[in-house]
């Protein structure tokens, strides 16, 4: 394989992985901005999304219906999670809340083992998965789905936060919860909304991933961790920045693996995280000051 086609191949792989991280990273950002909590159970929403959609398809539902129902079910799980775990402890300190989310992520994995067992499962690609040749590199239709959905969500986010009433209301809760309350916005309702929406997005990420790498009860941990790194590298306070961060991490990993060694992949991405935290803790793409979201 010649060098230029290898580079293109690595770019495709990086974009695919980056788009998966991006979908989960958005969830981190939304929840973090609205509630101030880093939800470390975010990867588990992806796991639920993947496994539920596989079960629905096995039960005979068409793909589109399985995707929608799975996202809805996971949103409800997210809402339950907010009401039963986050809401009662909302007056606690942030580290307490974060520890609660870690506890929930372990509980979610346990529930998944009870329902689906430990065996990995797989999902058929969304459309015919014949690789597309491009300058001697190949791109899979499933990767296009994944990248496309991430980009679509990116624009949807920008539109939602800047142009819609609910989006503005969410932003208002972040900028100044007290003033928002005076304006008739209920921050607690917004927290519920943010967490269930993030859960639905996380579910979508899991569904898109499972034709690529399979789905199992423990898939959420590593996905969540990498998406977290991506969100911090890009900027935890800004959804588009987090998405950009996710693509940077994906491409960085892919090039490290393709040109150097697979073992060095995690070393590079976690070193990148530390470097960003020391040099530019607000993230690569976030504005240094100003409001969140």
């Amino acid at each position, binding site marked *: *394989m010649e060098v230029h086609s*290898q580079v293109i191949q*690595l770019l495709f792989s990086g974009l695919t992985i980056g788009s*998966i991280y991006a979908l989960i990273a958005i969830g981190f950002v939304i929840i973090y901005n609205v509630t101030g909590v*880093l939800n470390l159970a975010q990867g588990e929403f992806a796991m639920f999304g993947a496994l539920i959609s596989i079960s629905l398809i096995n039960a005979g539902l068409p793909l589109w219906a399985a995707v929608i129902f799975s996202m809805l079910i996971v949103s409800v799980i997210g809402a339950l999670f907010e009401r039963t775990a986050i809401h009662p402890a909302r007056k606690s300190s942030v580290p307490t809340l974060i520890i609660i989310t870690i506890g929930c992520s372990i509980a979610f994995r346990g529930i998944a083992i009870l329902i689906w067992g430990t065996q990995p499962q797989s999902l058929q690609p969304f459309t015919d998965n014949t690789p597309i040749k491009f300058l001697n590199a190949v791109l899979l239709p499933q990767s296009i789905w994944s990248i496309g959905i991430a980009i679509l969500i990116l624009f949807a986010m920008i539109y939602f936060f800047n142009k819609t009433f609910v989006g503005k209301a969410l932003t208002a809760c972040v900028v100044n919860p007290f003033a928002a309350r005076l304006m008739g916005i209920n921050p607690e309702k917004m927290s519920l909304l943010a967490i269930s929406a993030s859960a639905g997005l996380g579910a979508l990420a899991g569904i898109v991933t499972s034709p690529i790498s399979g789905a*199992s009860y423990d898939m959420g941990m590593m996905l969540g961790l990498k998406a977290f790194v991506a969100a911090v590298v890009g900027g935890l306070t800004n959804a588009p920045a987090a998405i950009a961060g996710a693509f940077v991490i994906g491409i960085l990993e892919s090039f490290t*693996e*393709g040109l150097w060694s697979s073992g060095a*992949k995690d070393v590079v991405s976690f070193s990148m995280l530390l470097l960003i935290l020391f040099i530019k*803790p607000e993230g690569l793409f976030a504005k240094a000051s100003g409001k969140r979201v």
Partner: protein
Amino acid sequence: MKKLWLLIFLLISMLLISACNSDSKSASGSNESDSDTIKIAGIFSSSGGAAPLGEPGLETLKMIVKKQNEEGGINGKKIELVTYDDKSDQNEAVLAMKKAITQDKAVAIIGGTISGNALAMLPLSEQNKVPFISTASSRQIHQKEDGTAREWVFKMPQDDSHAVEKLLQYLKEKGHSKVAWLNVANSFGTGAHAEFKKSARKYGIEAVIEDEFEATVKDAKPVLTRVKKAKPQALIVWGTVQETSVVIKNIRELAIDLPVLGSHGIGSQQIFNLAGDSANGVIFPGGRLIVADQLSDTDPQKEILLNYKEEYEKEFKKPVSLFGAHPWDGFYILVKALEEKGTDRAAIRDYLENNTSEFVGLAGVFSLSPKNHNGLTPDSLVMIKIENGKWVLEE
């Protein structure tokens, strides 16, 4: 700055949590005592993460003990089987071992589904001088660091080195001298990699590229682009079902037109679901059990393999698995010793070690010796090819 440290702390704690999560379910065990019986203990991971491996083992052992008792037991004495579930947890495994030895006073112990558990259990067997027949695969279970055999421990499954050697033999026969080696980055993969490096030269085989992929691999195409550039004649992907499926799919997607070889860890029905058509043509060293019906009639194992398959599938209404075969081998090797030597533990140990030769079992033909408490050779494995959702014996 405070936030920064919090983030780092969180990251470290997440990694720690991911490194040590285990699960547990309820225990099972039975206690009876009767001097007219021979007591054997079975310790398996019938719940928890290793349950898919432990369950067939426990079921098989129960089935064959019942059968042996119906046929008159051993020299007129019935066998009493005490079973424990170690919940895929090392501490539980050690506790079960202690109970089996001190309370049940079992004559011998069969079990230890996964290597970690078996390794944790074996010091108790050595200290208390109780024969322990392990059904987990690590070579360290029956061999000490210096390569000599552990006194009281025997091991039924093949060593990983047997699978690697079988693979190398096959590559040599086919004339592939330049190969690419990829292994999953855990003890299963790195252990095999060490064996590969040790033995490859003996077979005149050279790795033009060696690398790893993680067990949670999503896209192995980046590393495969390097494999393609190295121009090997064959590609070895050493992992278990899930990660191997991903890598195989990526190989097909990149249209790398080379023979693909897998490990003995992919011989499970799941590969058909997870890898689909991509799995076609993949060749791996595996036990004879899954291709029993295709063996030649002169194969000494054919008859017992088919019998076991029929009995197990009739009793439990599910496909047979090699993990059930190891307790079968352990039990029947032990039965011979019990028939000859009664219930004296030291005599049983000596008999197992010196008088088990050419024993035809499910995993292979065992010839134990004081130096080798496993007794299998690479020939206990055959090369199996995946073709359209079927296992095909590769000559």
